[in-house]
């Protein structure tokens, strides 16, 4: 039963390659809806997997799956509007790979076997590569090349790390199945040297995919060259999938009593990513790349929170959920901006507040949310991480973190103001006067998915349903996190 959640989009994805264009668009939305229902069913009563050795429903998997499912459904609605307004030469390939991408990401959230998780994460790279190359330009080719090569090599390192875990099992005389759920209780018997080496390789490997600096170089290119619905998926949920790999391995580390070791590594990578994002965001000239660097920042925050432990892990999971919701809405809005101004440069946009008031509201609210302003959830997550850092004596880390947040906010704010209020530098013709001739008309299907995403983030900030709260607590409890 569990496997149906990823088999369904796989089958419909294959169907989408051969169906007529209009039908495959409807299939995209329909699959999104079915997938959402199936994921919610997993929440209601946790069923056994057919292949229980390889797949299992875990709290952290359930959380990511729900985020993936909700995001995909809303993005699929946006995509139909996007395709109607924009049109792609190879539309079937696009919709087909969107669905295959959904299928592989779902598989990541449900895998329990260490190697099956690796297979699923590598499969997400393969299924998303054609999405990045959709525009068939030289730049998108370069982005795809970097993405496939850097991520494949990175993930190969994670495979080496997984092999080292098997070495540590063998030396420790552990005969349990090679799954995270079976290894976590017996982690104390694993050989610590190989376990540590394995963890380093896995963090480097899955960290490449997650966009942790200094392995992040593919991320801004891929996110800026992909069509906006695909960027929203890449940034909103693919990065979480890679994080899940690190999270699960960290569970073994904590249970083996090596949480200091793994925590330090995660804190260092997290801070590196935050600082790298801060330096690049300041001088960014393209808005989609700016959003991509903000993703690197948020992934750094999540790694930092996980490394600090305790309340920090809770903050990290909160950040992960809200980053997905808010960042995907921002990328969808950036699709509207790109479609309206037909330019990626911030300098050639402007006066969005007048030209596209609906997109402006979504974009500006998203900006406030991602910068950590209340009443959006990232504020709470970041606050928890800072509190945990002070509580555990990581003063230097907290200092670097807070300073970088300020720098990122300053850089981000300057660019967003330019997009929203400045007069366009080149095209004086697109002034407020010819508002009526503005080429882009903001169809409702391309605006309200963003509103729903932001509203979800807003509501989750004030009211978390019991089931959701309990699942978050269960997930963070396993790596020593909690509300204390």
């Amino acid at each position, binding site marked *: 039963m569990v496997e149906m959640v990823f088999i369904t989009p796989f089958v419909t994805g294959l169907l989408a390659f051969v169906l007529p264009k209009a039908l495959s668009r409807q299939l995209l939305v329909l699959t999104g809806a079915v997938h959402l229902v199936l994921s919610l069913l997993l929440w209601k009563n946790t069923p056994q997997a057919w292949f229980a050795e390889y797949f299992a429903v875990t709290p952290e998997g359930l959380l990511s799956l729900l985020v993936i499912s909700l995001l995909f459904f809303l993005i699929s609605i946006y995509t139909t509007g996007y395709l109607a307004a924009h049109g792609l030469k190879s539309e079937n390939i696009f919709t087909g790979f969107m669905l295959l991408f959904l299928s592989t990401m779902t598989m990541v959230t449900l895998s329990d076997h260490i190697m099956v998780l690796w297979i699923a994460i590598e499969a997400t790279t393969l299924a998303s590569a054609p999405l990045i190359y959709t525009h068939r330009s030289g730049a998108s080719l370069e982005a795809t090349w970097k993405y496939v090569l850097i991520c*494949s*090599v990175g993930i*190969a390192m994670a495979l080496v790390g997984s092999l080292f875990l098997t070495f540590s099992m063998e030396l420790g005389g552990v005969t349990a199945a090679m799954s995270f759920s079976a290894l976590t209780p017996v982690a104390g018997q694993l050989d610590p040297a190989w376990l540590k080496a394995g963890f380093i390789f896995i963090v480097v490997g899955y960290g490449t995919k997650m966009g942790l600096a200094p392995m992040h170089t593919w991320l801004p290119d891929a996110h800026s060259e992909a069509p906006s619905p695909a960027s929203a998926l890449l940034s909103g949920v693919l990065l979480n999938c890679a994080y899940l790999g690190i999270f699960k391995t960290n569970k073994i580390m904590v249970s083996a009593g090596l949480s200091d070791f793994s925590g330090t590594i995660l804190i260092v990578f997290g801070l590196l990513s935050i600082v790298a994002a801060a330096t690049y965001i300041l001088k960014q000239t393209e808005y989609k790349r700016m959003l991509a660097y903000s993703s690197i920042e948020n992934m750094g925050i999540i790694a930092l929170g996980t490394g600090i432990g305790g309340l920090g892990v809770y903050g990290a999971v909160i950040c992960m959920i809200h980053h997905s919701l808010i960042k995907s809405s921002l990328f969808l809005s950036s699709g509207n901006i790109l479609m309206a101004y037909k330019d990626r440069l911030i300098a050639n946009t402007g006066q969005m507040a007048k030209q596209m008031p609906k997109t402006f509201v979504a974009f500006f609210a998203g900006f406030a949310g991602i910068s950590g302003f209340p009443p959006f959830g990232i504020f709470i997550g970041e606050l928890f991480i800072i509190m945990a850092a002070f509580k555990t004596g990581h003063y230097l880390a907290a200092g670097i973190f807070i300073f970088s947040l300020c720098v990122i906010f300053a850089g981000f704010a300057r660019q967003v103001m330019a997009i929203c209020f400045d007069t366009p530098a080149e095209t004086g013709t697109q002034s407020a006067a010819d508002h009526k001739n503005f080429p882009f008309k903001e169809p409702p299907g391309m605006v309200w998915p963003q509103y729903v995403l932001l509203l979800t983030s807003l509501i989750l900030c004030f009211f978390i349903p019991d089931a959701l709260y309990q699942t978050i607590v269960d997930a963070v409890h396993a790596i020593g996190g909690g509300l204390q």
Partner: protein
Amino acid sequence: MTLYTVDTLLTLVLLSVLFAFGSSRVPSLIKVMAFQGIVVSIIPFFITPHMATGAVIFTIATLVIRGVLIPLSIHLAIRKVAIQRDVAPIVGYHASLFFGLGLIVAAAVISRYLNIPSISDSRLLFPAALSLLVTGMFLLMARRNAIAMVIGYIMLENGIYLMGTTFSVRARHIVEFGILLDVLAGVMIMAVILQNIKQTFDDVDTSLLRTLKE
């Protein structure tokens, strides 16, 4: 007896590593890569004395994919783009060869100090796997020709497979097969990208792929 065979085969792998460091032409690199793929995939036959039917079938499947399909897909990709040129080294061939020699010695020394389970029967298995892995990394970093970089990735994957040989004997073949399919699909996607790079830029030098920055 069989251990001698394994070590002889692995010596050939180590020699091929040196070839890979010294080759200047893409076709010869492909031959080296295909040879390594074949050797790496037949090693389980000599390590396990009595193989179950499933293991035999899986090993043959590995041989077909690593030794034939993967090199063939790269070969076809370059046939279509017809590239007869050097691998555009960032590090020269002589320096590369010295690096290769040093690498083999270092790998042999390091392996002695590591506590490696079960594969310690064959003294050369871990050094050979490590050398293959680093060779792949080296080609990825020190060559600008995109085809040479893809070949580097394949060598890296071959090295990882060799390192996990004992694991593959024990583990579920369906899982190993999944890994193999991922690698195959990845190489095929890279081959498609290679063709597109050639069509768009009329070359496969990755220094042309430098427009996206910061």
